[in-house]
């Protein structure tokens, strides 16, 4: 057993390892013993942990031969024991041979490795020697290269220097050529010369300490000075167009001429040019006549549009161009330019204004508007430069527009006066018998339509000022103030006002101071006209105006339509009142004269109505016709026509005796009046010169009242005889007969005639009234 143990202990053969009996028995030779070997030398910890102490595993690291033996002995029967022993022996042997193979193989390898190392040792030693050689060679090379380069360096430097010198020389040559070139170009192409000089100048300045350079510089300077001089002379004497001028000045600036001086020169040159243009414009204007307007200025040679056109294209264009170049040349500092430009612009404005003044006549407004428009448009460019000019220009345009509107107002007024004159003439013209002249309504219609037409035409003209395509129409002035102040107030309202005033003037003015009074028919006509204005025309005109010239909300206060209407109505009222007064006075005068000149004491018994009464009735009938042409009938107090006759007979037969009665009774004189006083208490007070209404009846009532009251007062101043009284009676009856139908209230006529009769009776020495039937007879016969 010991052998076994020793065998297994001192490198026992492979037969001894029981595990080989398992799986590895059938596998190939070299891998199988590898595993156990590997396991032996370096068992992995995992394996060790896993293979917990199994002392019986012969291949395990914790193999305990004792325990194994014990276990085998105790467990296995003999046969198995023998078999195991044989297997173990086999295994040990196998293991031994493996070990021997391995050993052999490894030894061979070691030997070859040792050989290789030995060989390497020898090689390295050789190589070291070669390396040393190499180093030595390299050192030699570098030394020789340094030698070569040292030899070449000097040459290189020299060649570089030569190249520099050549460049310099070339430059110098250019410099030297500068004066010549300058001279050559200065004649023909000053701009090029200038460019050349600019390039050369810096260098020349830099090397000016060198005499030769200085000579060049001086020369070129001289040339340039010469050039500058020439430019200057050119600037001074020649008339340059603005572009040339600008170029010229630009060059001079580049020549470092003093900017101040130049700008002055520039401005003076430009000024001269602009002056010339202004002078051309001015030449077109007739010379201002200091002696006043003794001679009417000849009509301007060209129309205003042409004038403005030329003015703006020539003057404004040039001015703009010059101002632009000034800015470009002398920077944004416009301190000098502004007064210059504004002075010129002011002169231009003045010229334009003078030209505008020549547009006295109404001419063609569209032309004017276009001219102003063009002016304004052209000026806009300039205005950016001259903010102050903007106001002036706007003011100029506005003034022109305003002027034109004023002129239209005057023209309208003249037109209206002309129309009135025509109407007067038509009224005054003697009418051939049988042929009626134009009726009042025709005249009125003609007057009204022509005036309205004219007004409309004027509005249309004025509207041109605010047309959309006109540039200045967008100015705030034209949007707001012009519409309201100038057109609505200044033109329309002023015209209506003036019309009312003029109409009133006919009523107020001439009557008392002996001036030729307006014919009554004219008064009537104007009254109607004013009334029509009040009723419709003013409203129409204002609406039209507001449509054409929309007023702005925040604009100045406008005269409201109703105020104008009230004015027109007042004028109409005044005229109609005046008409009544004039006509009344005419009739009254007739009556007064007839009463005053008659000898009432010595008259004979009345046989006829006095002629003057017939005349009165005729006149009043004529007035009735006249008024009827223009005014409505009006209301009269309702009374049928025959009632008046009855009323009159009542008056004559019953009342008259009643009133005369007290005269006969021998009572105190006061009693005479008592009755009439009592009567008056019950009748209304009659205002004689009271305002009338706008209708025919009212007008005629007014006239009749005035006439009859006059008759009354005149009779009271006379002393009558018996027949005088009777004549008054007849006249009164006659008047009553024919006048009642004209009056609105026949009781007024009746009352006044009653009073006339009563007064006549009172003033009569021998009051014996005529038989009423006789009175009627006479009247009917007359």
């Amino acid at each position: 057993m010991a052998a076994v143990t020793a065998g297994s202990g001192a490198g026992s053969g492979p037969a001894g390892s029981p595990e080989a009996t398992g799986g590895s028995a059938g596998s190939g030779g070299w891998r199988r013993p590898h595993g156990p070997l590997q396991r032996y030398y370096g068992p992995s910890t995992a394996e060790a942990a896993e293979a917990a102490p199994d002392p019986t595993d012969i291949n395990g690291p914790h193999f305990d031969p004792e325990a194994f033996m014990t276990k085998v002995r105790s467990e296995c029967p003999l046969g198995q024991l023998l078999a195991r022993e044989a297997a173990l022996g086999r295994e040990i042997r196998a293991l031994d041979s493996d070990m021997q193979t391995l050993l052999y193989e490894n030894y061979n390898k070691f030997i070859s490795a040792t050989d290789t190392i030995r060989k390497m040792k020898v090689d390295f030693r050789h190589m070291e020697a070669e390396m040393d050689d190499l180093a030595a060679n390299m050192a030699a090379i570098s030394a020789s290269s340094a030698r070569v380069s040292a030899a070449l360096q000097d040459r290189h430097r020299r060649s570089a220097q030569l190249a520099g010198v050549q460049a310099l020389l070339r430059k110098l040559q250019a410099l030297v050529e500068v004066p010549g070139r300058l001279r050559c170009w200065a004649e023909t192409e000053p701009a090029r010369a200038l460019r050349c000089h600019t390039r050369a100048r810096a260098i020349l300045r830099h090397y000016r300490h060198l005499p030769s350079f200085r000579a060049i510089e001086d020369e070129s300077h001289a040339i340039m000075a010469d050039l500058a001089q020439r430019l200057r002379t050119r600037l001074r004497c020649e008339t340059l167009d603005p572009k040339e001028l600008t170029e010229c000045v630009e060059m001079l600036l580049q020549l470092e001429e003093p900017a101040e001086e130049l700008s002055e020169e520039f401005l003076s040159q430009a000024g001269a040019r602009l002056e010339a243009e202004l002078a051309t414009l001015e030449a077109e204007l007739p010379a201002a006549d200091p002696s006043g307007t003794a001679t009417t200025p000849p009509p301007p040679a060209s129309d205003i549009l042409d004038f403005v056109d030329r003015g703006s294209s020539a003057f404004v264009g040039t001015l703009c161009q010059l101002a632009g170049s000034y800015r470009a040349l002398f920077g944004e500092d416009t301190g000098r330019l502004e007064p210059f430009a504004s002075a010129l612009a002011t002169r231009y404005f003045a010229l334009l204004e003078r030209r505008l003044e020549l547009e006295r006549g109404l001419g063609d407004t569209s032309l004017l508007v276009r001219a102003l428009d063009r002016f304004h448009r052209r000026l806009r460019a300039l205005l950016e430069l001259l903010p102050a000019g903007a106001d002036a220009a706007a003011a100029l345009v506005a003034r022109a527009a305003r002027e034109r509107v004023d002129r239209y107002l005057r023209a309208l007024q003249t037109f209206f006066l002309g129309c009135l004159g025509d109407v007067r003439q038509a009224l005054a013209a003697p009418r051939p018998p049988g042929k009626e002249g134009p009726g009042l309504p025709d005249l009125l219609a003609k007057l009204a339509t022509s005036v309205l037409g004219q007004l409309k035409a004027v509005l249309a003209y004025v509207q041109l000022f605010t047309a959309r395509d006109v540039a200045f129409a967008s100015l705030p002035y034209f949007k707001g103030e012009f519409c309201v102040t100038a057109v609505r107030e200044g033109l329309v309202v002023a015209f209506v006002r003036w019309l009312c005033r003029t109409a009133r003037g006919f009523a107020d003015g001439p009557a008392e101071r002996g001036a030729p009074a307006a014919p009554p028919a004219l008064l009537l006509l104007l009254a109607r006209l004013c009334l029509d204005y009040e009723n419709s025309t003013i409203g129409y005109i204002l609406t039209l105006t507001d449509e054409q010239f929309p007023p702005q909300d925040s604009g100045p206060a406008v005269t409201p339509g109703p105020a104008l209407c009230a004015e027109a109505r007042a004028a109409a009222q005044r005229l109609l009142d005046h008409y009544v007064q004039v006509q009344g006075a005419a009739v009254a005068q007739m009556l007064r004269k007839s009463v005053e000149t008659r000898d009432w004491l010595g008259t004979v018994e009345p046989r006829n109505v006095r002629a003057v009464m017939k005349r009165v009735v005729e006149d009043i009938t004529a007035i009735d016709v006249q008024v009827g042409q223009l005014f409505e009938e009006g209301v009269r107090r309702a009374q049928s026509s025959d009632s008046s006759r009855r009323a009159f007979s009542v008056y004559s037969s019953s009342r008259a005796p009643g009133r005369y009665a007290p005269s006969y009774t021998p009572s105190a004189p006061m009693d005479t009046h008592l009755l009439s006083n009592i009567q008056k208490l019950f009748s209304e007070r009659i205002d004689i010169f009271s305002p009338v209404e706008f209708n025919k009846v009212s007008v005629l009532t007014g006239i009749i009242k005035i006439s009859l009251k006059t008759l009354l007062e005149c009779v009271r101043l006379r002393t009558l005889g018996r027949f005088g009284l009777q004549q008054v009676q007849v006249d009164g009856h006659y008047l009553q007969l024919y006048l009642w139908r004209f009056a609105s209230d026949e009781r007024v006529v009746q009352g006044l005639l009653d009073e006339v009769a009563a007064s006549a009776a009172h003033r009569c020495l021998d009051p014996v009234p005529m038989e009423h039937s006789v009175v009627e007879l006479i009247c009917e016969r007359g």
Partner: protein
Amino acid sequence: ARALTPQTAETDAIRFLVGTQSLRYDNQIHIIDFDDENNIINKNVLLHQVGEIWHISTSPADKGVLATCYNKTSDTKVMTCAAVWRMPKELESGSHESPDDSSSNTQTLELLCHLDNTAHGNMACVMWEPMGDGKKIISLADNNILLWDLEESSAKAVLSSSAALEGKGQLKFTSGRWSPHHNCTQIATANDTTVRGWDTRSMRQIYCIENAHGQLVRDLDFNPNKQYYLASCGDDCKVKFWDTRNVTEPVKTLEEHSHWVWNVRYNHSHDQLILTGSSDSRVILSNMVSISSEPFGHMVDDDELSDQEDQHQEEKIKEPLQDSVIATYEEHEDSVYAVEWSSADPWLFASLSYDGRLVINRVPRALKYHILL
């Protein structure tokens, strides 16, 4: 009745003379006394038998002397004459008899002298020299101005000078006034639509306002305190105020009446008060502050002693005094032909209408104090 005058020489009692117009009865002159304190009217009647009275005026010097223009009517002719009369002594200074007595035993005027007008035509009015001694009168007869000297205590009238207005047509003076200014050497007359001024020394025309009114000029009056100012009224219903140095334009025009204005009178002491009577039966009292002699709107001198506040208030009140109509009196039923201020009481006036009604009115009390204070 058309004739009305204050008793000019009387300065204590309020007395008016009214002449009647009647063709068929004896005409009378009524002496109206107004007792202001008791508001009683006392009437004395004097007979004036020669004819109806168209104009009456009283001597500024002698209470008892008056002049009338009257119509003498014969069968075929009417002639207007003028005469100077003296009323009975006991009526001169007013009597306190009961009205019944006076009406029962009417007394007669004593004729002093006739103003002989046979050569000159109808007398329109008689004017006494204002401020004078009652020796000089001027009468207007048709187109003549006659200046008379009354001699031998008014018993005899001698025509001292005269002037005639020449022109085409029948010119006739309608009225006239004697200016109290310039030593009483000016008069103003009205004929038709023209107002003329005359110098009584040379009897020449010194100014002429052509077409002073649109129609007949009915009456005139001089501003008693402003020497060149003249008021006129006429048939065009207007009252106009003139500066006689500038006759082309009236200074002011009033248009308040609705018919002819027959009479215009300045208040004797407060010349802003203007009284007008018209045949529209109205009497209108106007306040023409702007053309009066009163300083406009204030009287500081009087208030200098009173404290400032009072003065302020005072001025505030005075401020609104404007030219205006103060009052319109409509008591009359017929045309008013005459208005007169009382010579004794500057706040009292009378108006007379065709039907014989005489109305005495006072200036409204408020206005009176306004003017006075």
